[in-house]
């Protein structure tokens, strides 16, 4: 099976709400949601860094759904995902005093850390050798595993917005980003999987993210 026979398969988000807006749709006019939550998370994390456990608990409530959702997408296994999520938040607590809002938001800080943990785990678990890893890559093709996720929380607008912006990327941009972010592939593995040169994948990851950034209107 070629990777491109079903280009939407790579990113199988939850069922779409409303009419499908394809690559040719108008720029996203909806205001960026969640920016209040962003400022709130920054404040909570800073308070947690000063030892405020209540602030930390509120921060957990705010970010745990995103962290668990992300880790689960990468790892797939529910038990392992909860274990990693738990470790992530304990580590967030431990290092909270080192959070610097001038360098990025609390949610980015936490999600970046969670993603790295999940990716490190998936790489070490799934591949003790290159060969096994290759087999693991092949296995991934036919099992998406995300569909059985039913406990989606309130994230429909965000989901729509993200999907719309991903739809606006070129096929290679979208696949490079989703294979890396949701599957933990390195750019070399993405290149091998998509059968395109590694230089192309590096470039597409960068310009794809830049296009996404502009579409999602991400601050930092």
């Amino acid at each position, binding site marked *: 099976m070629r990777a491109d026979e079903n280009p939407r398969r790579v990113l199988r988000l939850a069922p779409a709400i409303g009419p499908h807006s394809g690559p040719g749709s108008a720029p996203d006019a909806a205001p960026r949601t969640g920016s209040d939550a962003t400022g709130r998370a920054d404040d909570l994390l800073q308070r947690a860094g000063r*030892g405020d456990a209540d602030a930390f608990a509120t921060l957990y409530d705010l970010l745990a759904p995103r962290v*668990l959702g992300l880790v689960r997408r990468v790892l797939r296994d529910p038990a392992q995902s909860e274990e990693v999520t738990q470790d992530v938040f304990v580590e967030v607590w431990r290092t909270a*005093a*080192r959070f610097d809002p001038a360098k990025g938001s609390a949610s980015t800080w936490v999600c970046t850390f969670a993603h790295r943990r999940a990716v490190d785990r998936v790489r070490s678990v799934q591949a003790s050798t290159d060969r096994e890893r290759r087999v693991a890559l092949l296995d991934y093709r036919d099992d998406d595993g995300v569909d059985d996720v039913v406990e989606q929380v309130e994230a429909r607008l965000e989901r729509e917005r993200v999907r719309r912006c991903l739809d606006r990327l070129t096929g290679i941009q979208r696949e490079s980003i989703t294979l890396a972010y949701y599957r933990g592939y390195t750019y070399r593995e993405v290149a091998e999987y998509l059968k395109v040169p590694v230089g192309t994948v590096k470039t597409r990851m960068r310009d794809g993210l*830049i296009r*996404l950034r502009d579409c*999602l209107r991400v601050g930092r």
Partner: protein
Amino acid sequence: MTPPDVHALTGAYALDAVDAGERAQVEAHLAGCEFCAEEVAGLRATAAALTEADALEPPASLRSAVLGRIATTPQLPAQAERPQKRQGRPRWLRPVTAAAAAAVVAVTAAGLTVADQHRRLDDERQRADRLSALASVALSRSAGMPLDGGGSLAVVAVADSALVSARDLPALPGGRVYQFWFVGADGVRSAGTADGRAVAVDRLLTGAGAARAIAVTVEPAGGSAQPTTRTLVNAPIRT
């Protein structure tokens, strides 16, 4: 001083799609390249924003496990940052690193530092990206011409440049690419290739010259000097 590769890796790094060696290499570079650090911060935030689409309600047991553990977990002090790391002060107040100091020495006639120029270039690049994205969106809404075999191509040309927007392209077998051609009285010239697996292609083609149409063919990877297969579409750009 900087391996030329490092900057090309910012996207892959932001997605954690690099190996441990490259990760260290990029991080060493970021410590001395404020421009790169800014870019990575933005790309990271973008990647993190993707998680908004995948939130899952965590079980209550997870919450109590986390809160139970932090009750007995000591916190690290706010770190004395490693000296080469930039501080959380506004950009213009940050201490000048060795690399930036070198940049400051290279002040141009206009009084801009190299870092300023990088930033301006990046702003310009972003502006250009946005403009061409807008133009592509506008263009892709026009009907376009059907390609033989599937997909459509819309074209608009101004002076020496042509913006093409291809949609719903069928995936080509491995080792094949789509190739664009300028077609005019002076002959047929290559206008570049596009990945055979791209579903949609938006491209600014320059050097149209006297070309009167843009054609598309399927060619071997790397493209051909002249078309070697039948023309899928021949879209006029001059009337």
